[in-house]
């Protein structure tokens, strides 16, 4: 039976690329996103390429929606082999004192709380299977910090520490938990906000001389689902052209 991968934020740039990669490798992918149209688009692309995919709606910040999602996936497929928590984003760029409490919570919840809620519902299924891979998503900013992105940097640093703790909790059951930390990556949403030219200027210091592509990240998410990474847990994998070397 093919492996089942649940991907939050699967309708987005990096999540969509990860879904494509895993489907091409023969996994059944469940694309979970609160942007249902985006999730549907990715599902359609995968299906027409001959892959197996479902698109389901979820707001990862809402306990009830996450519970319903995971029950739905479990009843459709009977198992979850891979959980990739990719939903998230920085949402705002402004000074700390300009953040309202609601905005602060929105950023923390979409990134950090969403990761927690998804893990909390999926982990028991993996514990019963005595196997599973959980892949969380941080950012280079979770290590370096970033002016004008205080809640985002805090949430991403939180995800790194959350991952380490959960890795220790789930290790006895043979479940691996790791973090992927993308650097500046050319997703449609990012390119909407900034021209490729301005972007290249801002990132001219990247040792490999270019910003990342969603496919670069997809390769790392996929690697962390394979037998080749069977001895790796609790770690953070920066994929960023060398812009940050922690």
């Amino acid at each position: 039976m093919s492996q089942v991968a649940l991907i939050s934020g699967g309708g987005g740039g990096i999540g969509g690329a990860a879904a494509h990669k895993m489907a091409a490798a023969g996994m059944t992918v469940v694309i979970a996103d609160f942007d249902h149209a985006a999730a549907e688009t990715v599902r359609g692309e995968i299906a027409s390429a001959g892959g197996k995919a479902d698109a389901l709606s979820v707001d990862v910040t809402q306990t009830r929606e996450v519970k319903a999602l995971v029950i739905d996936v479990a009843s459709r497929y009977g198992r979850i082999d891979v959980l990739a928590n990719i939903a998230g984003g920085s949402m705002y760029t402004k000074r700390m004192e300009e953040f309202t409490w609601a905005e602060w919570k929105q950023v923390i919840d979409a990134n950090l709380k969403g990761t927690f809620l998804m893990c909390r519902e999926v982990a028991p299924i993996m514990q019963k299977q005595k196997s599973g891979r959980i892949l969380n998503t941080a950012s280079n900013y979770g290590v370096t910090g970033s002016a004008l992105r205080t809640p985002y940097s805090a949430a991403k640093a939180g995800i790194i520490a959350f991952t380490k703790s959960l890795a220790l909790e789930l290790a006895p059951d043979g479940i691996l938990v790791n973090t992927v930390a993308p650097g500046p990556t050319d997703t449609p949403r990012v390119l909407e906000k900034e021209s490729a030219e301005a972007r290249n200027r801002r990132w001219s210091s990247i040792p490999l001389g270019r910003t990342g592509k969603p496919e670069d990240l997809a390769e790392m998410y996929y690697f962390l689902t394979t037998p080749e990474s069977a001895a790796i847990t609790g770690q953070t994998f920066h994929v960023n052209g060398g812009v940050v070397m922690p």
Partner: protein
Amino acid sequence: MRLKDKVAVITGGAQGIGRAIALGMAREGAKIVVADLQGEKANSVANEIKALGHGALAVEVNVASESSVKHLAKTTFDCFGRIDILVNDAGIYLKSSVVDMTEADWDRTHDINLGGNFLCCRAFVPAMRAQKSGRIISMASGIGYYGMKQFSHYAASKAAIIGFVKALARELGPDGITVNAICPGSANTAMPRGHRTEEEVMQRLHSTPLPHVLEPEDIAGPILFLASDAASYITGQAYNVNCGTYMV
């Protein structure tokens, strides 16, 4: 086959982790130079690879000797005409407390573990630069991060490799060459057995958070990934492979 027709030089390839890397890369289609101080053992690994139907060459080398490394590079280019992947795996693991340590042990550790990285990179980087591509992967160690009593020279040499890798990654990024390190935890090879009883070794191997004994193949896997096209946007990183013993 992810490494079809690539030429890979594996120092320390005669046994343990290096051997697993050599066999793994051969299975992915690469031609392998097994470079090791133990010439005879290197030869038998090369023969093993040839028996699987892949190209291989054994070269006896001391990575801490300038002239020996020059000879390694010349033999590699004479035989295969290029280099795509350099794995700096050769290393030694001596035991001594700081106060009892001889200068000779200190020097040997740094000459081989760190100096070997420098000499091998210096010998092979010009060819990678000329072709505007290449992969360098160096073997560091978790001990480079968390330290270990009676292994201060080893710890320092492995931490130094991480610094070297980051600096070299910055130097070579513009040429399309990536440079990364792998930091294994305690692995099931001859190396830890040099200083511990079999019982102590097994106890260490079984006391990781993940109930999984770290085998050479577990370390070879991530190295194959870093050598493949899938990892073309990764440089300057030190990835830990240790069954969860240490998390950076």
